[in-house]
Every structure is written in C-alpha cells, then in structure tokens.
C-alpha cells in the first residue's frame, strides 16, 4: 500500500513537471530566443526525464524511452492500468 502511494505520487509528479515543460514549450514557440524561458524548459525537461527514469526503475516503463535494455520485456509483464498499474 505504501508502495502504491509512492507510485501514485511519482506519477502525479511526472504529470506536473511534464506540464511545466509543455506549457513553456508553447511559450517558446513564439519566443524562441528567450533565454530565461529556455532555461526554465530545460530545468523541467530534465526533471521530467529523471522522474520518468525513477518511475521506470521502480515500477516499470511508462513509454518506450524508459525501456531498459535488459533481458526481460517489462512492458508486457508489469501490471496493466486496470490491474492498478497506472494512476
């Protein structure tokens, strides 16, 4: 149960930092030279990658970029969303 909560919190954090990066990406579409915005985007983009990697390490990959090159295809054997595998 404790792990499930951590999983949900981590998933929620991924959504939030992803939103930060996506929303600033929209701003950068019209302000491509804004250095402050670029730094903001890079900060949250990196936080997103770290959170995705942390999630993948504990609970399995959320997308193809998070799939480790080991000897098991975790995508197929981790819990499905209807099995509590996603939030």
């Amino acid at each position, binding site marked *: 149960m404790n792990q499930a909560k951590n999983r949900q919190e981590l998933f929620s*954090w991924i*959504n*939030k*930092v992803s*939103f*930060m990066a996506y*929303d*600033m990406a929209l*701003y950068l579409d*019209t*302000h491509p030279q*804004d250095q*402050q*915005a670029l730094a*903001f985007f890079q900060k*949250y983009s990196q936080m997103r990658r770290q959170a995705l990697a942390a999630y993948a390490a504990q609970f399995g990959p959320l997308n193809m970029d998070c799939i480790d090159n080991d000897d098991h295809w975790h995508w197929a054997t981790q819990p499905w969303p209807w099995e509590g595998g996603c939030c």
Partner: protein
Amino acid sequence: MHNCYQPNNCGAMPYTMQPEGYTNSVNCTCYLAMATVPWQQFTSSYEPEKAFRIGTVFPELDKPFLGRGVMRS
C-alpha cells in the same frame, strides 16, 4: 452567404469577407474593429502543483474563467 454562424446570437460574430466587401445579410449588429494584443513576456511562473491545478504556468494568463462553473481549490 450568411455573415453570422449563429443568426440568433450574432452580436459579436465576424463579418465575412466577400468580393464586394463586408456584407450583413443576416441583419446582425456587427462592427469592424482593430485588436491589439500585448506581447507576452516571461517574468514569473507558478510552482508545479499550482500550475497543474490552474492550467497554466504563467500567472498573467491565470484568468477567472468561471462562467461554466470551473472548480478551483
């Protein structure tokens, strides 16, 4: 060709450009106007929790769009 997409509620609907100019065949009260929009400048941002809840990173775009009962806490 109709100018307004909603003939019964077209007070703010645009005219349609036609070869002879702007016409008003639906008898709505539309007026030409020029709009100016200031260029957004990134100065501050919400923290992730609040930005995600509000729906924008930018405080200057956090408008009270509450006409349809949007829930905010």
